[in-house]
């Protein structure tokens, strides 16, 4: 039997970042995060150790994210509100770092779902085998998706950089 409160506290940063993969900053992300916590409150008492706890928690979190994406797309919301919103201002370097992270998460949210999940799980430090377990896919598929995600992310980042340059110039 797992200590739910302890698990939720331990995974809080990972869950926050997972929510950022599917929702822009603001109330939308908070709602998704709460939804993930609610889902885990129901799912964790049924955890029997068939997979690692991290795999189990991430699977539930990503499924909540998918459910949110499905709802958004069904409601025909073309772009998430605040998707390109600038983070709150702060001291220069700090603000710059926050902007970089938010740009990265915005670019990730634009990736196809399969590629997005593989990339975010890689950045969370999971091995290809673990990613395969979370997503229920073969390791070679993980590798193909990661390659695709990286090229798409590079492409989009350079497009965004060009757009910003044009905006400033």
């Amino acid at each position, binding site marked *: 039997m797992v200590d739910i409160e302890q698990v939720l506290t331990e995974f809080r940063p990972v869950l926050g970042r997972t929510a950022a993969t599917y929702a822009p900053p603001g109330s939308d992300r908070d709602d998704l995060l709460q939804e993930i916590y609610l889902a885990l409150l129901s799912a964790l008492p049924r955890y029997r150790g068939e997979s690692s706890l991290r795999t189990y928690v991430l699977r539930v979190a990503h*499924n909540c994210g998918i*459910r949110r994406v499905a709802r958004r797309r069904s409601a025909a919301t073309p772009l998430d509100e605040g998707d390109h919103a600038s983070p709150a201002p702060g001291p220069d370097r700090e603000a710059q770092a926050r902007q970089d992270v938010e740009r990265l998460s915005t670019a990730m949210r634009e990736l196809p*779902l399969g590629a997005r999940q593989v990339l975010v799980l*890689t950045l969370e430090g999971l091995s290809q085998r673990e990613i395969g377990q979370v997503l*229920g896919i073969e390791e070679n598929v993980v590798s*193909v998706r990661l390659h695709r995600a990286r090229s798409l992310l590079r492409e989009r980042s350079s497009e965004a950089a060009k757009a910003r340059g044009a905006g400033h110039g």
Partner: protein
Amino acid sequence: MDEELERWARAWQSMEVKHVNIMKHSQTAHRHEAMWQGVLAVGVGLGVLMVAITLSLLAAGKLSERWPLPIQLLSLALGGWILWRSRQQAALARARLVATPLGFVTDLMGLRERELAGWVDKRGLLPGGVLISATIAICVARLARDRAAGEPHPFVEGLMGLELLFLVAFVIFGIRRVRYLRRDLATLRELRSELEPER
């Protein structure tokens, strides 16, 4: 992990996660959910009871005194079944969350397809529509006859009106739900194609 991935991972993991007491919020939401389940149970119970009272009053007036009890028992059984089904659906939804993402989406699609088929199935819609229309027509005719004979049943007439309103609301809900289900299915198909392993 190569240099580029490491750089991204560092940036990614440096993301600040807003410190809100989500645990407390979630527990509150959990309690609200439980409360709404109770409200739903009471609502279903009241609805079923209203149908039972209307049918019993109509039947008691014209048929036999033995009718009301079986009708009420049947209605209670129906209410119990509806609640049991909703509990079962909630348990299934919880189980679905721990499936793989592709399994989760496929499962949701199956669920939506079954629900859509249920809403638009002509074999169910046609007899159901005929049965409901006939029942309403008979009830209205009987109430009108009694009123003309100087024996109005204002309570039953009120309940009848309320049930008609529920019926109209149900039809509107059905139409909107079918539209939503079609849109949702199209989205889920799109998501499944994004999640399916590359060939």
